[in-house]
């Protein structure tokens, strides 16, 4: 399986690349529009500030090729900001437009808990998803974020909680995304990546 990993300069690109490499995937790391437009299996990792991701996609003219690839059915996996970017907008960068593939706005987690939501948390499955096949219930995943998508969205497959519930795993046709970092989540994270490769094949 060939994975096209979109490298817009995010810090976690090398570890995502290593994680897919360990699973035997052939990984192409790119920031070139034509490579993304032709891809059949796309991964958008991301960590940090949402504005940095959106601005980098637009500065390199990657938004349209990415939307076209997803539009014609390429398998997509968004990680952390790669999940948040799917929505119309984010409170973290209110003036920027998200990819708009999913309805709604990403908002900040409540102030009554420590932020960032940093560390290992569990999931509650709300709908069957291929991404969580063979993942033991009660498994922990590593999160590092302060903003999140509303748990109410119909695309939600599993939620987690920190101050409020939020989407941790989503799947809608060829679009998959996780708020946690599977590349940093031990064996359960590896299983999620394996499941994505299987679903994309």
């Amino acid at each position, binding site marked *: 399986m060939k994975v096209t990993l979109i490298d817009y300069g995010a*810090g976690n690109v090398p570890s995502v690349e290593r994680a897919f490499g360990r699973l035997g995937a052939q990984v192409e790391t790119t920031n070139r529009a034509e490579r993304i437009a032709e891809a059949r299996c796309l991964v958008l990792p991301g*960590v*940090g500030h949402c504005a940095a991701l959106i601005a980098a996609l637009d500065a390199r003219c990657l938004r349209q090729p990415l939307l076209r690839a997803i539009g014609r059915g390429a398998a997509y996996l968004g990680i952390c900001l790669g999940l948040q970017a799917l929505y119309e907008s984010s409170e973290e960068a209110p003036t920027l437009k998200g990819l708009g593939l999913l309805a709604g706005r990403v908002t900040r987690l409540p102030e009554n808990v420590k*932020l960032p939501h940093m*560390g290992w948390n569990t*999931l509650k499955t709300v709908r069957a998803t291929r991404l969580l096949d063979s993942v033991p219930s009660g498994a922990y995943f590593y999160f590092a*974020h302060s903003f999140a998508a509303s748990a109410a969205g119909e695309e939600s497959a599993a939620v987690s909680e920190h101050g409020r519930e939020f989407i941790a795993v989503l799947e809608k046709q060829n679009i998959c995304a996780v708020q946690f970092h599977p590349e*940093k989540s031990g*064996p359960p994270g590896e299983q999620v990546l394996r499941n994505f490769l299987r679903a994309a094949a």
Partner: protein
Amino acid sequence: MSLARRIIACLDTDGARVVKGVHFEGLRDAGDPVELAARYNAEGADELVVLDIAAARDNRPTFLETIRRVAEQLAIPLTAGGGIRSLEAARAVVRAGADKIAVNTAAVERPELLGELSAEFGAQAVVLAIDAKREGADWQVRIRGGRQATSLVAREWALHGAESGAGEILLTSVDRDGTQSGFDTELTWAISKAVSVPVIASGGAKVPVHFLEVFTRGAADAALAASIFHDQVQSIRALKEFLRSSGIEVRLPC
């Protein structure tokens, strides 16, 4: 669903070797960083921190190579620190495979560094390491591996650091470090309750009950230890089993 308290293993390195000192002094060799990283990853450590204590002196390429080799072993987050004084130095450790950057002396000397790192990597990647020493009713910040006093009060510096872009505080008690007499729960409580970001307690751990104390009486979000894990005095799995049986939520690997 709730966030687990984290157990973090720390490797203090001098170039390519892990070392351990008492009260920040008297270093001795404690093993190979790559071997230790692999063991902690398998044993269920929630994160790994690698601090280059020789960084200010020399040998940067060796440290970056250590980060690279350690990162290859890990499916858990990795923090690198020691002598990171600029955005460029931070980029180098991130490129080598670190998920987070810990800064200490450099942030005291130039607090804008925290904002610069946060703007580029996000607050979740910026760890402000604070070495605090009891002075009367409060705690004073020390720099240069605990050797040099400053005029900063630890609580105020932690608050300022979190506002300036640090997403986490790594709080070391200079008084307890290396003594194995337990974490300074009073210090940890004071800082953890003051800031809105997670606090990692460090310095003084020996037995499992020390960890229980720092999570309950110290309100720590995470606890870090080094030599007791290196010397196999304490297994991480047994520690976590003890904490879970004491009612603390921890991640036990499946």
